[in-house]
Structure formats: C-alpha cells, structure tokens
C-alpha cells in the first residue's frame, strides 16, 4: 500500500464508523481543499453517494467564487447541502469589516456562534432544493450529534491534541485536558444526551498529502488556490477581509506540490495568510474550544 492509500483507507474507515453510529450526522464543508478532500473521501466510503448533509457556515464575507463552487458541486454530486449564518449580527453590522469587532471577535460571532447554533438546530438552516437550485428553509431542526470536520494535526498547535472522535459538551466545549482514550480503531461512539461528537477523518494528513491526493484522484478544487497570472494565490481560504493571497506562481496542482516540497513554502506555516491567527498566541485554541473550525 502506498502512503496515500493508507491514509485513504483509514479516513474511509472512520467515515463509515461515524455513519454507523450517528443517526444525526453532518459534515462541515468550508469549500476549502481539506474539506473538499473529505467530501471526496465520503464518496469513496459510500461508493459515490454522500448519505448525510453537508453544512456550510456562510459569513457573507466569503470570497464569491467559493459560494459558486459550493453550489456547482452540490448539484453535480447530488449533495444534501445545508447552510446557516448569523443573520442577526450581519443585520446589526456587528462585524470586523463594519469596524464594530476585532478579527477574533468577528470569527467568534460569524463562525463559532453561527456554527454552534446551526448544528444545534436553534437557528434556521437552509437546504438546497435540487429541483430549483435555490435554498429553502430546512424543516429538520434536530441537533446533529455527529459532526465530521476536516482538521489536520499538522495545521496548528492545538490540533495536534485531537482524537478521531472527540466529544463536545452541551456548550460545544472541548475538554482538551480530558480526552477519551482512543486505540485499536475503537472510537468514542457513546455519548450523553445533549453532547455531541466531532469526527476528524483527516487528522493524520499533511498539507502535502492533501495536494498529492487531489492530484492522484483529480479532485476539483476552487481555482483561487492557483496563480491566475498575477503572481499570487491563496494557500488557505477564508473570509476576504482577513485572508490574503501569498506570492506564488503555482498555476496548477503539480506546481503547488513542487512548491511545498522544495520551494519557498517548505518551512512556512500554511495559515500565514490568515490574519486572525496572529492576534493572540492562543487565539485559535480559545476559538477552537468553543467550536471554531
């Protein structure tokens, strides 16, 4: 087995375990490369089908191509696509771009709060109607008890402490000091009412693995990752006020792989273009405990 085959097999195993154990299962799809690989792995696991909803948190500040890409794939791949957002904060202009919040506060408001309340079903969810191509109010208000997320252990300090199946309490809090044991591919699949489990099938993958898999499987990714002739590209995608392109002339997947292996990004952190990471040294972990992806 090759390295990528092993990673794929383990991720597929985890996805199938999640599907067997959680009646209300959902997968978070940020439209970025990692969660798009995750989505592809779900199609691998279930032989071309994705038997659970994909949830996207729309901050309204996402780069517009991301939303187009999302809806195109959702229709093509027959996905049960759901989105949620913090409409109240957006109406009241309580955001960083409006000057009312810091970057981190904005992440908490538009991402964490929206995510927690969309997952619990407290706030409205909108589901893609495949007949019309438009989003309609989702009648299913049941909380998702299993949430599949595309985090990787190599991304950021706090993430290296994760489990494949990681419990969250009623407030979506992550008790980082008291993680359940996890060995021999036996996962935490029993949980108390009101709590839920985050499932991390990509934990063992690196940024390079992701791109090599995208190349091997020919997975569609959003063109924002490639240089369109301006000598810059996005290495990590988020909201446009806080995500900046990096200088790079990589125009396709192969060139990105080369750049990661030997070029200038060899030793530079992937999220260096994400401004919110720099505000506080433990910022991401603080956010992460409350449910930020």
């Amino acid at each position, binding site marked *: 087995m090759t*390295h990528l085959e092993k990673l794929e097999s383990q991720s597929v195993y985890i996805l199938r375990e999640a599907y067997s154990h959680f009646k209300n299962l959902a997968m978070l799809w940020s439209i970025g490369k990692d969660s798009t690989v995750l989505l592809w792995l779900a199609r691998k696991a*279930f*032989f071309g089908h994705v038997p659970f909803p994909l949830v996207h948190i729309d901050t309204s500040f996402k780069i517009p191509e991301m939303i187009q890409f999302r809806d195109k794939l959702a229709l093509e791949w027959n996905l049960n696509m759901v989105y949620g957002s913090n409409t109240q904060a957006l109406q009241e202009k309580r955001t960083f771009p409006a000057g009312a919040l810091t970057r981190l506060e904005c992440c908490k408001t538009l991402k964490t709060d929206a995510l927690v309340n969309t997952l619990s079903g407290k706030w409205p969810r909108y589901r893609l109607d495949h007949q019309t191509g438009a989003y309609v109010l989702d009648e299913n208000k049941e909380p998702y008890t299993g949430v599949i997320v595309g985090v990787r252990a190599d991304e950021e300090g*706090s993430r290296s402490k994760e489990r494949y199946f990681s419990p969250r309490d009623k407030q979506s809090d992550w008790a980082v000091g008291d*993680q359940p044991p996890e*060995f021999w591919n036996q996962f935490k699949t*029993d949980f108390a009412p009101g709590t839920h489990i985050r499932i991390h099938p990509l934990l063992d993958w*690196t940024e*390079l693995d992701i791109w090599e898999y995208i190349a091997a499987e020919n997975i569609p990714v959003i063109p924002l990752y490639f240089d369109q002739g301006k000598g810059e590209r996005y290495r990590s995608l988020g909201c446009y006020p806080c995500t900046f392109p990096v200088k790079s002339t990589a125009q396709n997947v192969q060139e990105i792989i080369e750049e990661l292996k030997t070029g200038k*990004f060899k030793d530079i952190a992937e999220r260096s273009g994400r401004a919110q990471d720099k505000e506080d040294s433990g910022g991401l972990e603080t956010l992460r405990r409350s449910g930020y992806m």
Partner: protein
Amino acid sequence: MTLSKLPKMNIVVVGHVDHGKSTLIGRLLADTHSLPQGKLEQVKAECRRHAKPFEYAFLLDALKDEQAQGITIDTARCFFKSKKRQYIIIDAPGHIEFLKNMISGAARAEAALLVIDAGEGIQENSRRHGYLLSMLGIRQVAICVNKMDLVEYRQEAFDKIEKEYRKFLKEIELTPKVFLPIAAREGENIINRPARMKWFQGPSLLEILDSFEKAPSPQDKPFRMPVQGIYKFTESGDTRRIFAGRVESGAVSVGDKVIFLPSNKRSTLKSIEGFNAPARKKISAGYSAGVTLTEQIYINRGDILCKEGEPLPHVSSLMKVKVFWLGKKPMAMGKEYKLKSGTSAVPVRLKEIKRVLDASALTKLNKKIVERNDVAEVVLESSRPVAFDLSSELETTSRFVIVDEYDISGGGIIAEVVKDEQSPVREQISIRDQMWDFSVIDPEQRALRYGHQSKLILLTGSVGMDKKTIAKELEKILFETGIKTYFLPMGNLLRGLDAHVESHRASRREHIHHLGEIAHLFLDAGIIVVATASNLTDEELRELQEVTERDSIVIANVGKNNFHGPIVALDLSEKENPVKNARKIVGFLKEKKVLL
C-alpha cells in the same frame, strides 16, 4: 512543516514522569533540523524574556494547559526525519493520571523508546509502560537509560539498570532490541556516538531508530473483514447491496466462497466495488473495501467476513482475556458493560477474575474488582456469541475495548477460548450448513414472491398461561391476509416426531433441538411459523437461536418474563383478550418490516 517522500514510521516515547521523554524528543527535533523555521530561536527568546533556562522539552509544550501544569498531558504528534525516513514521534505522558493518553499514543506506534532516568532508576511507570507495550503488541523497543550526565557517565550505573530491567522484561515476555545509555539534555548518543561514554560501542539512538523495520502487512494470514455496514442507496438509483469493511488480514478474490461469523451464513464473492478506482478482482489487508455477494443473505454489522477453507475465528460467549482498566469506576462483577471488538458490540459481564496484577510490581493481587490502571486476567461472558481470534493467532481480531456507560474504560486481548454450553451445538450446525444442499431459489426471491420474510414467532411463558389461543388467532389473521403461515405447538412435536423419545426431563433438550431443526426447515421454505413452548429457559432459547438463526426468532412472552437480559421482543399480558394480543404481534411484524 512539510515532509518529503521518505517512508514514515510511528514511534512512541514512554517512561516514568520526569525521566526526560520530552527533552529526548526536543533534542531529536532540534539536532536533525526538523523544527519549523525560527521555532528554536523563538522558544529560546521566550525563555530569556521570562528569565528561565531553556530546555528542549519546551519545544513540545506548545499548549497552554500543559505549561500551566508543567507535565505533558497528551500524545502530541510531531514529525522528525533522518536520512532514511520520517518519524511521527508521539510523546506519551508518563504521569499515571494520563495512562489513557499513553495507550492512545502507544497503540498507534510501530516501535517504542522507553526512557529510564539513570539517577532515579526503574520506577512504577517504567514497569507499567513496559507491560502495556507488550500487551499492545509492540515488538520493537529500545530502552534508553537517560540522564547519564547525572551519574558521571559511569558504565556501572547503566549496567545495573540494564540487568534489573532485563529481568523484568523477561517475565512479561518482551525482548528489547537494545539498551542505550544517553544524555538527552547534553545531546550525548542521540544522533552521534557518545563523546563521554567511550565504553559504549554504539549504536546511537538515531541509528537504532533507523534500524527498526516496518511491521509486515498481515497479508499472508487468514482473511478477516469485520463488516462496518451493508449499504444500499436505492433512493439514488443504485441497486447494489454492498458489504463494506476494512480487510484486517489476508486477502479475498472474486469467486471465493465466504462465510460470515458468528452468524454462520455463507455465500460467494460476486464483485469488489469501489469509487473512482480501477476494477479489482482481489483485495488484501489494509484496504477499506466493499463487496457484493451472489446470494442475498441477511447479516448485520459486526459479523466478520471470512474465507472458507482457511482457519476460521472462534465463536463463543466465553473468553479468557488480559485487560487493562482505565475507567474512573472499577470493573466489577455482575455489572453489564459493552464489549467492542472489530465492528461488533455486545453486552458483556465479568464472569471470573483469575488474577489482578499490579503492573508496576507484577505481583499477584487478591482482588475482587479490577481498578483503574490495573492489569488483569479475567473471563468475560457476552450475552450472545462473538467471533474472535486469539492474540497468539491474529492480533487485530483478538483485540477489544470495554465501554462503561458512555466511555471506553478498558481494553485487552483475547488469550483463550472458553467453550460455552452451546459450543457442541454450534459445531454441529456449522457442519450442517456447510453440507446443506441449497435450493436455487434464494430467500430474498421467496420473500418477494410471498410478500413477507420467514420468521419463527415463539410464544412462551409459564405453564398455565394460554399461549395456544393467541397462536391460533395469530395464524388465522396472518392466513386471512394471504401470508404463508403454520401453527406448530411443542406438544405436536412430542406426539409425532419425538414419540419414540422418552418424555422425561433429560430429553427436554432433545425436544428443543428438534423444534429448532423443524422451524429451520419452515424458515428455509419462507414460512412464518407460529410455535408455542412453555417454560423456556435462557439456555434453551440460545440453543434455538443457534439451530435456526438469531434474527429469525421473535419471542413473545405471555405473563411473567423469566428471561435474563433483553431477549423478549414482545411482552403480552395473560389478562388481555387473545385476539388483541395476536394483533399486537401483527403490528410488531409490520413495524419490523417482516410483512413487506
């Protein structure tokens, strides 16, 4: 950090608290230039700012929680590379509180470094971790006697620890690859041969790591694929019925005869399915797969798909195991737990404690419970039979965990099969099914034609409870709706087929067995059998389940329920009108989609 194309290996570093695991890893990262750009300088600068001496261990203590407590709390994963390969090095905590984290890390490792402080010598967790490494099946272990600088690099100090620890490892049947004297803080014998321990001929730690080998894939072992799920995505226009799972050992090809255990159902492999992958005729260990079969048989998640003609797993409800216990509450006799092995999950009880070991001292403790951090040899009894291998035969399918309420609270390996009361029956049925000459009409075709599955509806309860009236009413209702059904009271059997068998207590077992065999024929013919039998015991019911099929029996109990465990599908009151009781059963059959 980006990694090259070098092969990967998971390594765990274990040992007692403060024996220098994090320092050792920090050294390996720094000396092999595997840290992200600027990381070393950044941590050194931070130390200067806080006016504290720099330590290599700080490189790993990235998390706030850890720094607050001053101990490593979890198996941080970090990457490091030599010329030969890249290592995913897991820093396992030495603090006893965090044994569950140590196991979570170590279970993923292909090799281990066990660190012992030369000054402090062998401590509680030096032994405990050694024992757990042996139980977790990690065969490549290097013992690093660290902090040699504290004993002036004297060979006698090293030799003393080696002698004592080798004796312990022999008791637990773990053979270490090597004993190494090192001083991680000073960088002695890490990537280079030691400058201050000329008496040591090598190799260095890095050389040792590079000498470890990848574990061979269990491809040449018998085929095992625990079933994760049976998928049919009919709504999306996909008519395939796919049995999905990961091949844990061996290999299987299209056309092979296969058997599912413990349910004992047989079929032939029709195809191997995939998505965006070239067509395959064979799958082997490691791959997450999906297969279709030529016959449409009904099985559940948890069964192990095996290959006929190869050694098969054992099937029993009793097993002798070695466990380690991590639960906050002790493991106690009589309490019901959940045993998860492969993809199966069954209720289980502690039947007998053979011995409890204090892993740190390896002395035999006379205890009636298994407490947190204990290692024990016990006999487990599951409420229904489980398919498993022994740890001496096939590692993966011999492993299990135990869930207490919501939490994984223990784990272990199955060391021996203990025959249960149904073992002889199971053997006979296995031979029967193997030799059975099957009709060309498969059960699914029959069910589609008849509009219902076949089932054994078994009405039971104490003598004097009127079961027959309900049974007859049920047969009538079913018959009138066009269902193929037959009333079979135990009494008819005694006066017919079993007329020659003397009617005394000892032959009761034979009658039960015959009832099962007759029901098995009716079930095979696609019929809903409505049988009655008084005073059925748990063990008699188990026998019926073995002789027919577990899922094909619906137990309806009239009056007081004397069974142990949740076997009864329907509790009926003897005071209720029999017609109403019969309708209740019909409702149940509709709900369970027995009637299509």
